[in-house]
């Protein structure tokens, strides 16, 4: 994008003044290079979001923003139900509550490297990944509803997780207000055999080493030190979330007209929060959040089983579990007044700053861990939420590196086999059923994650705590 299209407020804040049907400005947080490299579609989509009824303050985009569906990926927008505000199936996306969890192992690189190959093989065998993989769990109708209401708490009660994990998961592991009765039979059928599966695309399980510590005090509070080994899982609500997204997108695209909402793009499909369809979507979407929380808890349990085999005294402790495709009811100060808002984060991570009441006591003083997935080769980051993020973007930060190149272009440029070999030479073991899938996820197809998190820090969204480098990557 041409930076001249924006009003530059400071080195990492770029503003689009309201024009045409925009009700509020659009604000993108990024440095000038990230702005230049962003697709023009991000501008267009951030502007379109600003036209939706009841939007509060501004339509925001994070430093990793890229071309999405209706909303840009990396988009954040809050709506006030009392001002005609909407909830948007497009603003949450297909993979509802897709997110990241990081678990501490108490092991160091020196402990893991001698076992690295065997550990990679075992994880690849034990973690169902990719199309055609089979989960070990089949849910009947009663279990399905219990899972959709109970989230990670349900998984723990069934023995797939540990009780102490729950306070380290958003919503304490269970999203309130889920209405499994509004999840269609087709969505439930898609999920019946999918619990405890990783999925494909950019989803992964990685064993990672702490490569660099930026903030020693916060790192200590998080339990991270240089050369420590952690396990990070990126996945979401699987087929259930996809089906709910698909069904409500269609219903809301049609009903928007009846509500008198002019959609600049059908993918912005939305309905008033205070409407029957809006409430039904919220109930189904919250059930999908529980599905994602349960799924990541089960995958964490599988990882624990494998690690216990190789390292009998090792305990995997959950650092935190974040979701980056959600709509949540949160109270935020707007112009000095506390307002209850429906905050959409589409490819953006909640980033509560120090002192936030929802954080567990052990983390409250330093802020919420914000887990940023990078690419297979370049690594990931752990950040901590900043208090200033509330004013900047309703306590939100980036979620990943963000793609810089289409899968199509990546396939033309790279061979999956060569990527696997090159990364192996750097000490990174990639396990995937598909070499083409590896090529599509080539490290070079992503933006520079370091530039993204540096921009997020500069913009006051979240500060850097540690950088993680991959040792093992299981991809679907």
């Amino acid at each position, binding site marked *: 994008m041409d930076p001249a299209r924006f009003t530059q407020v400071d080195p990492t804040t770029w503003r689009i003044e309201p024009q045409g049907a925009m009700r509020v400005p659009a604000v993108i947080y990024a440095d000038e290079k990230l702005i230049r490299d962003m697709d023009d*579609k991000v501008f267009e989509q951030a502007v379109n979001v600003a036209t939706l009824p009841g939007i509060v303050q501004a339509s925001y985009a994070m430093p990793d923003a890229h071309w999405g569906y209706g909303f840009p990926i990396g988009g954040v927008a809050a709506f006030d139900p009392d001002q005609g505000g909407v909830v948007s199936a497009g603003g949450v996306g*297909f993979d509802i509550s897709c997110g990241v969890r990081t678990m501490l192992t108490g092991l160091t690189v020196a402990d893991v490297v001698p076992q690295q190959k065997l550990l990679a093989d075992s994880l690849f065998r034990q973690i169902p990944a990719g199309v055609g993989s089979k989960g070990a769990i089949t849910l009947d109708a009663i279990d399905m509803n219990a899972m959709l209401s109970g989230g990670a708490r349900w998984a723990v009660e069934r023995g797939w997780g540990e009780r102490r994990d729950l306070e380290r998961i958003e919503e304490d592991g269970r999203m309130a207000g889920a209405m499994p009765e509004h999840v269609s039979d087709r969505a439930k059928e*898609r999920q019946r055999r999918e619990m405890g599966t990783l999925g494909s695309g950019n989803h992964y399980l990685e064993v990672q080493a702490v490569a660099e510590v930026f903030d020693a005090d916060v790192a200590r509070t998080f339990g991270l030190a240089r050369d420590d080994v952690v396990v990070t899982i990126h996945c979401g609500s699987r087929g259930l979330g996809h089906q709910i997204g698909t069904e409500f997108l269609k219903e809301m695209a049609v009903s928007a007209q009846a509500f008198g909402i002019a959609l600049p793009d059908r993918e912005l499909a939305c309905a008033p929060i205070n409407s029957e369809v809006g409430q039904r979507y919220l109930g189904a979407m919250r059930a999908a959040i529980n599905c994602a929380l349960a799924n990541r808890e089960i995958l964490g349990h599988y990882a624990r089983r494998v690690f216990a085999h190789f390292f009998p005294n090792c305990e995997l402790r959950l650092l935190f579990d974040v979701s980056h495709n959600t709509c949540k009811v949160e109270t935020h100060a707007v112009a000095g007044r506390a307002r209850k808002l429906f905050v959409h984060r589409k490819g953006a991570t909640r980033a509560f700053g120090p002192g936030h009441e929802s954080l567990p006591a052990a983390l409250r003083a330093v802020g919420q861990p914000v887990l940023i997935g990078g690419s297979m080769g370049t690594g990931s980051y752990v950040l901590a939420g900043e208090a200033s993020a509330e004013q900047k973007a309703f306590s939100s930060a980036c979620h990943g590196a963000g793609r810089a*190149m289409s899968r199509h272009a990546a396939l033309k440029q790279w061979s999956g086999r060569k990527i696997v070999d090159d990364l192996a030479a750097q000490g990174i073991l990639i396990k995937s059923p598909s070499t*083409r899938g590896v090529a599509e996820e080539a490290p070079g197809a992503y933006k520079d994650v370091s530039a993204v998190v540096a921009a997020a820090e500069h913009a006051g969204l979240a500060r850097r705590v540690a950088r993680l480098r991959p040792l093992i990557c299981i991809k679907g």
Partner: protein
Amino acid sequence: MITAAPSPSKPRWEHFPHDADVGVRGCGATAAQAFEQAAHALTAVVTDAEVKPGLAVEVRCEAPDLELLFVEWLNAIIYEMAVRNMLFSRFAVRIADGRLEGTLWGEPVDVERHAPACEPKGATYTALRVAQDADGTWCASCIVDV
């Protein structure tokens, strides 16, 4: 000078790029044929390997217009792929009065042989277009979230 009358080109499919995902496009002499071709493009998102058309599955869907019907069609295939754990390689589509009846032929996923690259999550309204070109060719396209 004699020029040939415009005639619809041969049925074909292709992928087109999107930042995070992938576009599918099918073209043919009729809208139904374009839908069938786009379904081939959808399978090719998952695998380049041969898929044997051994088992038949029937699907039905409806929508207020052809573009929304196209998204419904792709989502119906994605649903069958997911719940049956199958891939499809032959398609027959009949469209009348906003209703679509389709038959999909395929086989269960064989991870070794198909080496599936990624899983379609849903067809989207992004870059959605179903239209007849000047030469009479119908093309149907949209972005698929993977």
